[in-house]
């Protein structure tokens, strides 16, 4: 209570000190506030326009032979490519299926046309001779070719075509 009494007495004894000076400390504070807000709203250089992270560089379309396609089998984190009827698809996003350890791993880095058509993942579906002609898909039945077309459509929807597959010696054609 002492404190309150003390203050009241102090205030009562105070004489009127108000003035009409412009440069009182209070006005100085207000002025600087005003100046700062004016600067912030009107003059401060705006932050640079937003920029998005740079795009991934595009994959260059390539011409593969069975031999140059072979390394793209997903081993050691490399991309997983497989070929269907002369078109090379980047199936890296489906690594769980097409990569090492997946059910379709035999197709990685190979021409998978015959295997997909027959619905078989066995080794004998793949073309043995890497330097020979491409699989001409002879001997497939209409239903199997139909199945292959279905696979191709699925691949076109989901994966990128990153190249074409030709037999060794036909790269320039």
């Amino acid at each position, binding site marked *: 209570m002492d404190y309150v009494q003390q203050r009241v007495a102090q205030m009562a004894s105070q004489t009127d000190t*108000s003035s009409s000076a412009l440069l*009182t400390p209070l006005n100085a504070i207000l*002025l600087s506030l005003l100046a700062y807000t004016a600067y912030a709203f009107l003059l401060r250089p705006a932050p640079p326009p937003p920029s998005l992270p740079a795009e991934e560089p*595009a994959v260059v379309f390539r011409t593969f032979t069975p031999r140059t396609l072979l390394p793209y089998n997903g081993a050691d984190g490399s991309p997983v490519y497989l070929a269907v009827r002369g078109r090379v698809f980047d199936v890296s996003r489906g690594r769980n299926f097409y990569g090492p350890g997946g059910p379709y791993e035999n197709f990685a880095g190979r021409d998978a046309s015959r295997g997909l058509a027959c619905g078989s993942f066995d080794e004998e579906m793949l073309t043995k001779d890497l330097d020979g002609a491409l699989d001409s898909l002879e001997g497939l039945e209409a239903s199997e070719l139909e199945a292959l077309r279905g696979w191709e459509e699925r691949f076109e929807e989901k994966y990128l*075509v990153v190249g074409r597959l030709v037999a060794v010696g036909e790269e320039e054609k």
Partner: protein
Amino acid sequence: MALLLLQLDESVTGLFGQWNIWTSALFTVFAGFLTYQFVTRQDPDTHPFLLARQAQGSPVRQPGESPVYRPQGAPHGMPLNAGLNVKEPGASKWSRGRDGDLRDVWRQAIAGVQDDGPNKGKTGRILTVLGTDKAIEHSLEDVTRQINLIGQHIADQGGNRVAIYLPNSVELIATLFACAFHNLTAVILPFDEPTDAVISMLRRSAADTVVTAPGSFPFDVVVKNYPSLRQLVWVVDEGSKHLDWNEVPEGTGGAVNVSTWQDIINDSPVDAGKELPSLEGQREPRDITVFWQSKPGQQEEMVRFTSANLVSGIAAQLFALPTAQRLSPADVFLPADSLANTHTLVLTLTALFSNASVAFNSVAAQADDLAIATRGSPSPTVLVATPAALLKTHKESLARINASFLSRTLHRLQVRRIAQSGVFPNPAENNKKLRLILTAERAGADTPLLTTSVLGDLRVLTGARIMYALTAAKVAGAVAQTAFYDYRVYESANGGAAGGESEAHFGPPVTSTEILFRDSGVHKTGDEGSRGEIIVRGPSVAGNEAALGVVGRTRADNTIAYV
């Protein structure tokens, strides 16, 4: 403790004890300023991220080429914008319409707005601007009648390839539509060319009919040097129509059938030609041939556009305007550039298709002066202007503004505000009617470039938004075009804000084109970005693919620019 409190209390009281009249004034200004800033704050017209990446590159590219760039409006895997989506009356709103052709543009122009809303059924007007304060309105029925009668007349006289050699005028557009409706091939010649250029263009396009105005067409010389001419239609002024234009001077042009536009119209029965040929059983649309003028002294490049090319170019221009800002019957569209220029022609057809009013000004063809082109009545809301005309306006206005410190500072503040806030002040608030300026760089034709800082100045000077396009000989409409809401100003690193060099760009491809860059000399696509000769593909490109012969690149926001 009490002492500390006491001190605090005293200092606060002491501080506010200084409150006086000045403090009140300052406080009022401060509060007012803050309120104003928060009340007038606006979101940018478009999301900044949409401007930060305006086109999408394809994930796979061919060796020796850059990725293929597509605009946001036509992403990869989707068809490019090929048609006008014309629906028969009564068709479901969700059904897919026809691509349409030029005939559908005119049918839409006379049918009026089809979408539900306050404008439903309204049509635009067609005006000829004469001098500064006179404008003649042509009723759409009259123009339809002219289209029918002229087309019928030319077809009856055995015409097949019709060369149009006219300044910007209703007759030019009417002849173009007459050709579309009556199975004729239109050939649009640039106006005001030297005689030998005219003859050479007639010869190359194998025209057998010419629609032109007396005084500008060297009839005698053409007849002597171009015997294939079979038919000529004079478009005669009001002032000289009493002369007998059908009379061919002795010894010249014996084989040429000469008539006048006015006679063909006036000699027909009043009721003739009021109905357009019906939609059912109409023939395939014919091609339209235009001449692209590159540098002075070089021969014009002849380009044949199919009707589908033009329609696709129109569709892309329709799409380029946001829904809220589309052309409407409230707009007055003025082409202050020659209609022989495909970009201007496509924009004019777009305006007709959007039921905007179109004003033709014959002096506009070569006018590099915006003031002359626009001073007539009614004042335009949408203007097509050449970069040269805009630069002239820019130079003159800036000289005036830079004369005083105050106006210069105000101008700079305005330019900065629009560029940085992304908010464009409503033109109506500034008492300005003009709301949009369309202008275009012509690839390989030495047109002056408009940098983003010049465009920024022009936005403030004219109060209108500006869309800057890249155009080329073989592309109907634009190859690429800056976005409607893009007001960004880029000062280059060495120029700085002191008005130095600034970058120019042409925005992303339009929705009817995709662009790629083919390696050319030292300009190769690599890690530092895409660059090379600009190649454009799409339904609006004659022959579906064209190399522009100029070297370009993409900027960080995937807009197209010259190297």
